[in-house]
């Protein structure tokens, strides 16, 4: 299991290759990448604030639960903080399991939980100013299926 909270960019392809290479015995690897999306067409940058210390602990706990519940061979979570531009990669998760069903479900579980339970806050900045992204009720509701 690997959890990384970092300011620096990362390459999802390189990370996925390394993750796959060390996921011995797994027959399925699933990955998800989150990209900075500019819905307004006016975003200059996205700033992600986090809670150092708690962020790592929360991600560890979520990933440990995923590993135990879906019997994963391995799990990877990378999440950036700081300033990013539209199109930049914010985060990725990868899961490795014997079969694809567990790998897919565990990846969805990881995403649902880290959206609403890991201490990150997004702020969008444009020429008009800065605004904090509001949490969505849909994201909170998504936790109920687990």
């Amino acid at each position, binding site marked *: 299991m690997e959890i990384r909270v970092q300011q620096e960019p990362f390459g999802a392809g390189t990370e996925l290759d390394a993750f796959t290479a060390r996921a011995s015995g797994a027959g399925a690897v699933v990955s998800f990448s*989150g990209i900075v999306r500019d819905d307004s067409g006016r975003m200059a940058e996205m700033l*992600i*604030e986090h*809670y150092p*210390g*708690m962020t790592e*602990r*929360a991600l560890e706990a979520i990933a440990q639960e995923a590993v135990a519940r879906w019997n994963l061979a391995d799990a990877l979570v990378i*999440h950036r903080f700081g300033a990013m531009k539209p199109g930049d990669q*914010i*985060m990725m998760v990868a899961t490795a399991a014997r079969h694809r069903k567990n790998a897919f479900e565990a990846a969805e579980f990881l*995403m649902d939980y*880290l*959206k*609403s*339970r*890991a*201490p*990150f*806050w*997004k*702020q969008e900045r444009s020429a008009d100013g800065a605004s*904090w*992204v*509001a*949490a969505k009720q849909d994201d*909170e509701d998504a936790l109920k299926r687990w």
Partner: protein
Amino acid sequence: MIDVLYFAWLRERIGLPKERIESSAETVADLVAELAAREERYALAFSDLSALRVAVDQELTDFDAPLAGVREVAFFPPMTGG
């Protein structure tokens, strides 16, 4: 002494990321009441607790959580990771 941390718009409204305070509060709710009684900016920031979340010693919890032996309390809006 308790370290109290604020994040995102709560940090902006209160005007600082962290402060160390002497408190006799027994629960998080008591601590919020103490803070809100200090100054208008705290009262405004804590006016709607349904818009806030709290972590005690870096674990998410509720506003009725006890504070005995606690070193760090953090207040913040609902999280928007991913």
